[in-house]
């Protein structure tokens, strides 16, 4: 790829996605304001159970999202604080950035005061929730328990594969969620608000319906948006998950995309290739990657995060809240065995997307995500007859991303696709 800057931008960003950032900023500001008034703040690993926390009036801050935000904003001090603490670079960058941030918030590590911390991170927590999706999450929570002197509640979720069948793990998790409710009641000193939980699940259901609509729109050729536009709305199903503004934000994105379809406007200028992104995402380069692909005439039409965090409205039942939450955790891509994960997470999306190839993103410091990717890509690629390429990067740590490697691998994939097309 040429080092010269392109003369014309080819990624046609969905403008409604910009409002998501404002909403996230407002949420962080609310967390700070509420904390000053004595409201509880929870940090945590994992999304599956946080409607349960939010319904109790506790401001929940998803740790990964906080780290992603710091990475996207290029805040350098969290990483330095983590290294100073003793973290090695190979350890999960979400954890490093997050724990580094806790040091800064606690006043144990300096930073340039021209940064407004309230815009990029949440206040220190009163409690930590761990969903045990990854073993690093356990140690992460334990470290914060000790460093911040806060209680930690863990929901232990088994990886539910045995000989190709999915045993009923949900009941096991539901029992633990009942304990979590008791724990929350003890923290808040109030009876649990089940109606609020049902309301939040109702909102999630609306958000999920919007996400489903975006996935449908992505099937069109050319697609009116790209996966990077979807990821720009990501906060609406992570940080803003279950808040009333979330479905509205997504609804605006859907509306703009439907208008684009009516007007014949596509997500990129000239869609020649359609690729699926299997794996995590490099949050610090979202915008530049969107443009990079657009310059190559590539629409990335879907990816792993399409499946995460309550993507299917029909799987959300506000009248069975604990069962819904449990199923979300036990049936996510990371708790199933590789083939089941590939079937319900990747293949279910890809089969209708008319993809030409798969990009496997090996997130260097995430063993949970990256460990299954080879098998999952193989599962989809064999069924759809498409080629795969592998690129290496990270969630938020620039040290592990090579622009040159990325370019070479993507361009190589496109050459394979071209050759196959010529051969047909």
């Amino acid at each position, binding site marked *: 790829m040429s080092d010269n800057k392109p003369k014309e931008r080819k990624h046609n960003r969905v403008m409604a996605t910009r409002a998501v950032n404002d909403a996230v900023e407002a949420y962080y500001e609310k967390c700070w304001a509420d904390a000053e008034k004595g409201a509880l703040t929870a940090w945590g690993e994992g999304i599956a159970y946080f409607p349960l926390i939010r319904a109790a009036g506790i401001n929940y801050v998803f740790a990964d999202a906080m780290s992603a935000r710091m990475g996207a904003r290029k805040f350098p001090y969290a990483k330095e604080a983590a290294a100073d603490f003793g973290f090695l670079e190979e350890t999960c960058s979400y954890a490093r950035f997050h724990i580094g941030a806790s040091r800064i918030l606690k006043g144990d590590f300096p930073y340039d005061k021209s940064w407004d911390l309230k815009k990029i991170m949440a206040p220190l927590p009163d409690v930590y929730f761990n969903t045990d999706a990854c073993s690093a999450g356990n140690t992460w929570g334990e470290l914060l328990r000790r460093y911040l002197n806060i209680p930690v509640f863990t929901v232990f979720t088994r990886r539910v594969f045995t000989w190709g069948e999915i045993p009923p793990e949900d009941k096991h998790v539901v029992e*633990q969620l009942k304990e979590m409710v008791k724990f929350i009641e003890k923290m808040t000193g109030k009876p649990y608000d089940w109606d609020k939980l049902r309301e939040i699940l109702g909102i999630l259901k609306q958000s999920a319906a919007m996400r489903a609509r975006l996935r449908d729109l992505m099937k069109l050729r050319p697609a009116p948006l790209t996966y990077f536009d979807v990821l720009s709305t990501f906060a609406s199903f992570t940080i803003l998950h279950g808040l009333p503004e979330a479905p509205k934000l997504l609804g605006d994105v859907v509306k703009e995309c439907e208008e684009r379809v009516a007007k014949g406007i596509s997500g990129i200028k000239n869609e020649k290739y359609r690729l699926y992104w299997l794996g995590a995402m490099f949050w610090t380069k979202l915008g530049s990657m969107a443009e990079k692909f657009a310059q190559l005439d590539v629409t990335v039409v879907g990816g792993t995060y399409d499946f995460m965090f309550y993507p299917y409205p029909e799987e959300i039942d506000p009248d069975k809240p604990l069962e819904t939450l449990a199923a979300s955790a036990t049936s996510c891509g990371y708790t199933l065995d590789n083939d089941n994960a590939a079937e319900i997470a990747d293949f279910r999306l890809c089969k209708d997307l008319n993809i030409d190839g798969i990009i496997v993103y090996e997130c260097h410091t995430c063993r949970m995500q990256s460990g299954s990717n080879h098998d999952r890509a193989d599962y989809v690629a064999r069924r759809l007859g498409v080629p795969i390429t592998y690129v290496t990067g990270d969630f938020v740590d620039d040290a592990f991303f090579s622009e040159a490697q990325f370019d070479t691998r993507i361009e190589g994939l496109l050459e394979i696709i071209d050759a196959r097309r010529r051969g047909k």
Partner: protein
Amino acid sequence: MSKIMQTFIDIRNDPYDWVNKWKGDNKDKKVVAIGVYHFPEEIVHAAGILPFGLQEGSETIVDGYNYIYPAYCGYTRSLIDMGPRGTLRVFDAVLISDICIQLVKADQTLFRNFPSLHPVLIQPSLDLTKDRNKPDLIEEYKRLKEIVEDIAGHKIDDAALKNSFKVYNKNRALLRKIHKMRSKNPSLIRARDMQAVVMSAMVMPKEENNNMLEEFIAELENKKTAARKGIPVFLSGHLCHAPKIEILDMIEEMGGIVVDDDLHTGYRYYAKDVSLDGDPIEALADRFRIIDPPCPSRIHPDNNWDQFLLKKAKEAGVKGVIILQPKFCEHQNFAYIYQKRTLAEGGMDHILIESEHEMISLEKIRTQMQAFVEMIQAKMAKGSKSKGRK
């Protein structure tokens, strides 16, 4: 070198060659590969099956990279690489305990791509604070027992389990004895040889190993040694696989005298016995819940490896702690955060040495060790109290 020690060394040098020969000589018997750490291998032994503690291979990872990306610890990458290599074909099953996401994924990868190896994952509940932890553990161990019974083709009764506990408890007692003998007189056994002793216990039939250990202890009791010059050190880390012997040799070459450890191929393997009282499965669950030594894979407010490490290092009278950190082991890195500060506050010098499956440069470790030893020697010469490195 005694014949017994040579046997231990031969096993350590190529455990997979050993087990293939064993299988050749014992065609009517079954052998199951196990991920040793936190695994209740007594259940496998009680079924009359040889539990073989999986060891990191010595080969360069090649075909394994078709299945996993490179940023996994050496142990799990090696394990996955053994799939296409065929190393695991000698086993009737591969049983692993979930203590870390990398082991889980290694098992998943083998399960998907090499199902004929019969990989099985057992998932003990890791949050020791919960009331449900013990019932969950019992449930999972009962499931494991059923799986092993299926492999064995017969039931395992309580008497067989308790007999296995006795055999294993004896093995651990013998290993603890050797550990104590080494602590009293480090010249008795080098670090690499200690590793060979422990690894043989992880791999061989326990009864046979017990006999060999008893003979070995008698040899040690009669061994004449000359005191070695150097700095007494405590080796810590490497939770679930053995450190490279080249690193152990380097430590000793540079003047470190290993007095004590909490390594996988050390104290961790023989720290905890199983009670012979009551229900045997419950006894195994109770053993899992003992926090000695602490392990970052489990959740409990008393599970503080740093405090344990400082206490043990002081009891051992060492001048420094060498933390052996396998590259990509997140559990251990998280634990290091408090180890670093606790050791410093406790006035105990330490160094962190990172190891890899394919060791690219031992010279880096040589330089680190040299500097560490010189620093401690200088402090000793001044007679100053160590302030520890923060």
